């Protein structure tokens, strides 16, 4: 195996086109290295992109947040811009593993793993994330929902690199959050992860709602059937009866006939109601 250290995006895409499916991108390495050490992966080359400065930034320009692929989960969890504009993402990043993982694990790695339990992905999905991809043949952008192609699979081509993720910040009279359920206080893969962005009109009507889940057997995903059922609902004394939405969420997000799916079905309704109340309480003028 070769270790190819690259310093720029140009060098990176050169190496990627050279190695193709035989190369693996190494950023924080918290997925790649354990897989290699367990003999589950034996690439011909590790392409170490961790030194590319151009992929490290967080910025907000023209109402769009751009997060570089190499931004670590620790930075996402602690950066003030993320805390203000993307609180669900900050909460999701803080929910991944322990501090040791968050120090080196990157947003790009979490997304490109395609893992069904990738905590940051639901938080990105509710921010309508766009994947900014680059290869020797040029750049393209892709909606995150389309980028995810099932458990462990993404639309990322072997010769392609994720540069950044572009996000729509949470607006006025909107709030969002992420909750994760695992057996322990931390460190477990999400049995269920739920991200919610909720927007209200001044009169308390749900003008927009985005719900995304992770932890199942498929890629993290939005749940449009619940979203469309809730949009237009009127809050009553700061509350909404989430029972119907919860039931729909449970059956839409955990249809499998496994024990794990059964647990997710049991948890999701209450979790949605709990997270929604928290979001409503976070919107000025709503007591929740």
């Amino acid at each position, binding site marked *: 195996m070769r270790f190819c250290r690259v310093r720029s995006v140009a060098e990176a895409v050169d190496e990627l086109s050279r190695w193709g499916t035989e190369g693996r991108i190494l950023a924080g390495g*918290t997925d790649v290295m354990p897989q290699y050490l367990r003999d589950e992966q034996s690439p011909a080359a590790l392409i170490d992109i961790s030194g590319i400065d151009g992929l490290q930034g967080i910025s907000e320009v023209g109402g769009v947040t751009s997060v570089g692929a190499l931004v670590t989960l620790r930075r996402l969890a602690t950066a003030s811009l993320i805390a203000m504009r993307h609180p669900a993402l900050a909460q999701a990043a803080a929910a991944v593993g322990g501090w*040791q993982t968050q*120090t080196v694990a990157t947003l790009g790695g979490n997304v490109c793993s395609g893992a069904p339990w990738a905590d940051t992905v639901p938080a990105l999905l509710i921010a309508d994330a766009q994947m900014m991809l680059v290869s020797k043949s040029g750049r393209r952008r892709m909606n995150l929902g389309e980028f995810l192609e099932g458990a462990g699979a993404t639309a990322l081509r072997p010769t392609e690199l994720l540069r950044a993720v572009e996000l729509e910040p949470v607006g006025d009279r909107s709030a969002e959050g992420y909750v994760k359920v695992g057996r322990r206080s931390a460190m477990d893969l999400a049995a269920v992860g739920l991200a919610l962005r909720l927007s209200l009109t001044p009169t308390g009507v749900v003008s927009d709602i985005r719900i995304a889940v992770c932890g199942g057997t498929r890629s993290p995903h939005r749940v449009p059937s619940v979203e469309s059922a809730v949009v237009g609902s009127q809050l009553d004394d700061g509350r909404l009866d989430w029972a119907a939405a919860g039931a729909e969420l449970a059956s839409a997000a955990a249809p499998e006939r496994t024990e794990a799916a059964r647990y997710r079905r049991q948890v999701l309704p209450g979790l949605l109601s709990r997270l929604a109340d928290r979001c409503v309480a976070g919107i000025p003028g709503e007591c929740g």
Partner: protein
Amino acid sequence: MPGTADEQSVSVRVMVNDRAHQLDVDAGEVLLGTLRDRLGLTGPKEACGEGECGACTVLVDGGPVASCILAAGSTNGRVVRTVEGLAGTDELTTLQQAFVRHAAVQCGYCTPGVLMVLTALLDDVPEPTETDVRRALAGNICRCTGYQQIVEAALEAAGTVQS
């Protein structure tokens, strides 16, 4: 396959405990192996081998990292601190002394990693709450102590509680 002949090496310049090293490491080598086998620093411990238990924790550019799954090749140009680099040959640090006073060491195998995380925490958050301390330790398994004496030592070292 890890550690076998088809591995090529890569050159790394890395500062470890204030000393500069120029090393050729294997492509698939992890930092823990470099520290223990090449530099003789056996303070960071080998345990779960999958970045779950924290016994191998070192600081890389000030942040705690599981060295058992960190590619050594990716530490080029970085600053690494291990438990040996905390007190060096001097008196124990305030945190280490608090560990002695609070009987926060039992078998001691998790201790080097725990110390590194708490050192980073006290650098980041000068007055951590008990919740801050417990959350910071999420990536560190201590099977002996049940954590309480460790948490108390950290809080005392932070000056959050008086001894």
